[in-house]
């Protein structure tokens, strides 16, 4: 099975304070490290596992600036055969525009595939929709929130998708198809610096995004960024660590959960 996996380079914002600049028109990323989108890491791992078991090849694709080559090298170090970078000079906030660009690229370059894997969502924009839009544009079946792939046959797969409250749904989907992978489906393998260095010797092809612009006009517009509205907020416990912990213990006693 030949699998295309989309992998995206995103800012690592988990423990960083984000600063707005230009009256909320931009976010200051100048001091932030970047990383592979967490969900895409699971998608690459799942694709590589399927190919290791049943044959075929994984091709990693990234839409982004030239720096996105680093997530392709990482995917190759994990087991992808090669990598394609579709270079765009600005962030595409509109998931429809992103989906249309990918559709155009796949069709114009005749990229062969039996399945397309994406992460469920990106850590940065959290749209969770490029996979579904792409599937519809390619007229392919789509399954999202996939937390288990139970079987891979010649013409179909049986997958489990995550619902709310611990419930899952088992679904049969014919191939070719688009699957969005949920985190926790596997344990992504460790990638060493040496592995990434070795992967950089594998050829990655680069394409100019503007070659695939047809019909990808944005349908939505980002007006500006704002900080989230403040709610009530917590009463912060301050002071020395020992004092803070004593206060915490008093709260537990007051609430009747610790005597």
């Amino acid at each position, binding site marked *: 099975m030949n699998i295309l996996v989309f992998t995206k380079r995103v800012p690592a914002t988990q423990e960083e304070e984000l600063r707005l600049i230009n009256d909320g028109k931009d976010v200051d990323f100048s001091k932030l490290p970047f990383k592979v989108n967490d969900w895409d890491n699971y998608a690459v791992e799942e694709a590589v596992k399927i190919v290791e078991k049943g044959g075929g090849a994984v091709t990693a694709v990234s839409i982004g600036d030239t720096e996105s080559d680093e997530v392709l090298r990482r995917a190759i170090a994990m087991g992808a055969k090669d990598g394609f970078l579709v270079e765009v000079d600005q962030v595409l906030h509109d998931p429809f525009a992103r989906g249309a660009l990918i559709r155009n690229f796949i069709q114009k370059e005749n990229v062969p595939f039996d399945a397309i894997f994406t992460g469920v969502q990106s850590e940065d924009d959290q749209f969770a929709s490029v996979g579904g839009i792409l599937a519809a544009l390619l007229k392919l079946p789509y399954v999202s929130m996939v937390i288990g792939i139970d079987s891979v046959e010649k013409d179909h797969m049986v997958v489990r998708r995550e619902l709310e409250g611990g419930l899952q749904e088992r679904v049969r989907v014919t191939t070719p198809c688009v699957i969005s992978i949920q985190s926790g489906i596997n344990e992504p393998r460790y990638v060493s610096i040496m592995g990434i260095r070795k992967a950089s010797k594998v050829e990655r092809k680069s394409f100019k995004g503007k070659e695939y612009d047809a019909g990808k006009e944005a349908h939505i517009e980002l007006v500006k960024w704002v900080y989230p509205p403040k709610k009530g907020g917590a009463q912060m416990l301050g002071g020395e660590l020992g004092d803070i912990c004593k206060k915490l213990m008093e709260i537990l006693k007051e*609430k009747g959960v610790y005597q």
Partner: protein
Amino acid sequence: MSYALIVAEARRGIFEERNLDSIGICTLLGKETVMLLPDGQYSFNEKLVDSIIKVKAGEEVFLNPLNMAAIIEKVSETRGRPDFIVFTHSSSGAESAAYAAGLFGFPIITDVSGCDKERGVFFKSYYSDKLFGEFKTTGDATSVLTVRSGSFKEFAAEKAAAPREEVIEGVTVSDSRTFVEYVEEEKTDIDITKADFLLSVGRGVGNKDEIPAYEELAGLLKAVISGSRPVIDKMWLPKARQVGTSGKTVKPKVYLAMGISGAFQHIAGMKDADCIIAINKDAEAPIFQYAHYGIVGDMHKVRDALKGIVKG
């Protein structure tokens, strides 16, 4: 009056409460509300919507993005194109919304948690709620929205008259994606929904080797240990210990969140605890907005200091 089409969700015959947020945003936008539901009888206040369209299909057929696109097409043929198609921002809502937007070429804004009707903008979370983007759609096409649970239900209001009801039959059912079965989570000895005191650990725990020390602290405090999604994904704690929309919804007397930043899926699962205490080294972590008490600091140091106090 132009109308908004609400795609409601029902699982195993239960009308999901998050549908109220879809109804709420449509009420706020001042649209006639037309709600799609799969065949069956559901318990909810029907007067919250103007019309109900029951689709002659089971929920497994209804909650399939390929079939849903065909249903939307059918509704549009008879009623005209809606101004909005509104889904919940859930596993199935987000899936069907994206597919419909792609198929019909409609603008889509997901995980909407607020809107300014006058300015025509919708607020959407970025970077795990650290920022919000204000978005507007361009052109006059139908807008597809997915709505964050808990954001709009307060705006849902009863209508003067009971809803008109109609039935759609003969929906084209896809054979390229078909429902097989529901899979239940395995039953375990500990039910975190029954605990009075949960000590919950998140991504900040750092690595698996730290987990036993938190289990020990939970034991000393007579708390039950639970976790947020990243910890469960890495299999450091069993799935049955997961708090959040895809795990369990809990309502303990005390919820002690250690190293949990507060993704909205997690907040949705624990926000109704009587007392929430959050410990995080990032003073800007969203969880502090929901907690009653907060400590900015190293969770491991707090853990060791608490152990010291309890052990005397």
